């Protein structure tokens, strides 16, 4: 890529950086899908296609020392925060070398010691957890730290969402609460999920700042998340960000998403954020379609190589496994064999 085409260099650099993460996430997810179809992945595969712009904007606005608890559709955000294709593939394929060592899989991965939390399935549960993590940082006198976590439209209906966001608001902690309103929770459309006009209407009821964003527009997402993260970082308390977008894939790869309203697919909300970003990049003269194409090829070949490698890695061996759920050996219970 050649030098300086636009004048807003910062924006351009950031935009392109974010775009390339989105692209890598997209290509990686395509790989996961094909590995799933080929029978290499057991259990569910849950992709974030169509949600990369919003997701990457969260991860990219965080820095080392921050806390990030991504959710189901945050492959892009995860990679922006430092997760790798290698560990993603290891976790999905159950490699013994992955961060979860085959004990947990797919989206339930993380490295909590690095601020990158491993979600449990129960939706909403990560919200109070990030809140508590931020409380710990405050106890230790660390300021300028942000904690971000994500949830779907469906997840806003959980008691955990409510209790967690409320507690963060009471403590005025730097929580960035990102709602990816992708119109459906599995098959359930929003009109069976909530009755407010807009999920952003919830902000005032918690006494937190609210931000709305077009989740199909990377530029808008970068800007709004940038603002929200900065506001949290500088003591503005919890920030609720609601992105409007559409999940462009099944709930999981087993699901053909035939329930999605075609009108939504055809509407603005149904745009593919990756394509929209590509068009913007080309229109801004930041890269040519050919350059973009080569980035994709590059990403794909790297991921293919990584996948091939991971497929040869050892699976966990039940005979070598330490079958204990407690860290302290004194606390291990003994059951007759």
């Amino acid at each position, binding site marked *: 890529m050649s030098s300086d085409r636009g004048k807003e260099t910062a924006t351009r650099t950031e935009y392109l950086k974010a775009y390339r993460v989105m692209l890598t996430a997209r290509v990686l997810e395509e790989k996961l899908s094909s590995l799933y179809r080929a029978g290499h*992945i*057991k*259990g*569910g595969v849950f992709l974030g296609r169509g949600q990369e712009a919003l997701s990457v904007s969260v991860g990219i606005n965080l820095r080392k020392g921050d806390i990030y608890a991504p959710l189901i559709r945050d492959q892009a955000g995860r990679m922006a925060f430092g997760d790798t294709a290698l560990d993603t593939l290891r976790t999905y394929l*159950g490699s013994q070398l992955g961060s*979860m060592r*085959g*004990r*947990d*899989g*797919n989206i*339930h991965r993380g490295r909590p010691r690095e601020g990158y939390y491993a979600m*449990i*399935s*129960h*939706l909403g549960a990560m919200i109070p957890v990030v809140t508590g993590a931020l409380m710990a940082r405050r106890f230790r006198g660390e300021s300028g730290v942000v904690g971000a976590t994500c949830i779907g439209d*469906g*997840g806003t*209906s*959980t*008691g*955990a969402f409510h209790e967690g966001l409320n507690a963060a608001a009471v403590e005025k902690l730097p929580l960035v609460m990102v709602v990816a309103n992708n119109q459906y*929770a*599995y*098959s*359930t459309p929003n009109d*069976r*999920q*909530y009755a407010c006009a807009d999920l952003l209407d919830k902000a005032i009821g918690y006494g937190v700042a609210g931000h709305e964003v077009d989740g199909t527009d990377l530029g808008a997402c970068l800007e709004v998340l940038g603002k929200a993260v900065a506001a949290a970082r500088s003591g503005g308390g919890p920030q609720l960000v609601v992105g409007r977008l559409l999940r462009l894939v099944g709930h999981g790869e087993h699901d053909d998403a035939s*329930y999605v309203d075609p009108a939504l697919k055809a509407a603005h909300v149904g745009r593919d954020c990756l394509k929209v970003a590509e068009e913007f990049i080309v229109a801004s003269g930041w890269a040519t379609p050919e350059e973009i194409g080569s980035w994709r090829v590059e990403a794909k070949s790297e991921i293919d190589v990584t996948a091939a490698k991971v497929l040869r890695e050892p*699976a*966990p*061996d*039940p*005979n070598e*496994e330490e*079958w*204990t*759920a407690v860290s302290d050996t004194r606390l*291990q*219970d003994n*059951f*007759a064999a």
Partner: protein
Amino acid sequence: MITYLDAIRSAMDEALGRDPRVFLYGQDIGAFGGAFKATKGLATKYPGRVMDAPLSEDAIVGIAIGAAIEGMRPIVEMQFADFSTCGFNQIVNHAATLFYRTEVPCPIVVRLPSGGGPGGGPFHSQSMEGLYAQYPGLVVMTPGTVEDAYSMLLDAVTLDDPVIFCEHKFLYNHLRAEELPKETTPIGKARIVRHGRDVTVATYSAMVHESLAAADELREDGYQVEVVDLRTVKPLDTDTVLASVARTGRLLCVSESFPWGGVSAEVIARVTSEGFGLLDAPPQRLSAKDTPVPYHPNLWSSHRPTANAIASALRRLLEM
């Protein structure tokens, strides 16, 4: 051929058809037919009576309780048994106590897609019967056959008390039968699914089939293994187990849930306190390991009891 899952769907279909008080409530169970397709087609067949719920397990159970107080017979589906922890309070503190406190019964059925499978991981694999069974006021059913899936769910809907219906995901499509049963085994009764004179295996749900496979294995060694399918774990049919142990003198309890407490411990406690003299050897048990259910298929299949592991346990027990 009718699968275990078909049987569950047929039971709900029949219940909806014959009793206007029955309705279904749960996540994605309407037009979509549910995560496992247990309610497929029912929303169309019974308009307005198969309703999608918000992602709110506590409210789902609470709503079922309220509807039951007003005379309805709700069947709620948890998307996975594991998510019932989010509706735990309403189940154990409200549904379970209502009749004792107020004399108003609480006829709800909570369907829990239970148990493990390869790749399910810690949060989509749990077996929770041993938790719910601890609470007075709840009935806990754990059908292990296509026939029981059907007839016990039909029973559950007619009962006035809250029923936790633990259906096993691994059996959904693996288990098949020729036809649905016309007659039902009495509520709360265990069933001897295989007769044998040497040792009794008391078990339930998916482990019935692992145990039967183990029994086959032991036949080759010349042993006759009796397998008791408990069917309902609260109330527990101690008499049938005792009668079996009276014949065999040996007992192995097999369960897929975590090893501390649960059904196996309860069965052993009852048999030893009420039928101590019947035992010729120490009663044994085999459960899953004392860790969360692991994701990787290799780990998963070592975590839960398998036919092989049961056969080994039986051999050890038979030599005692």
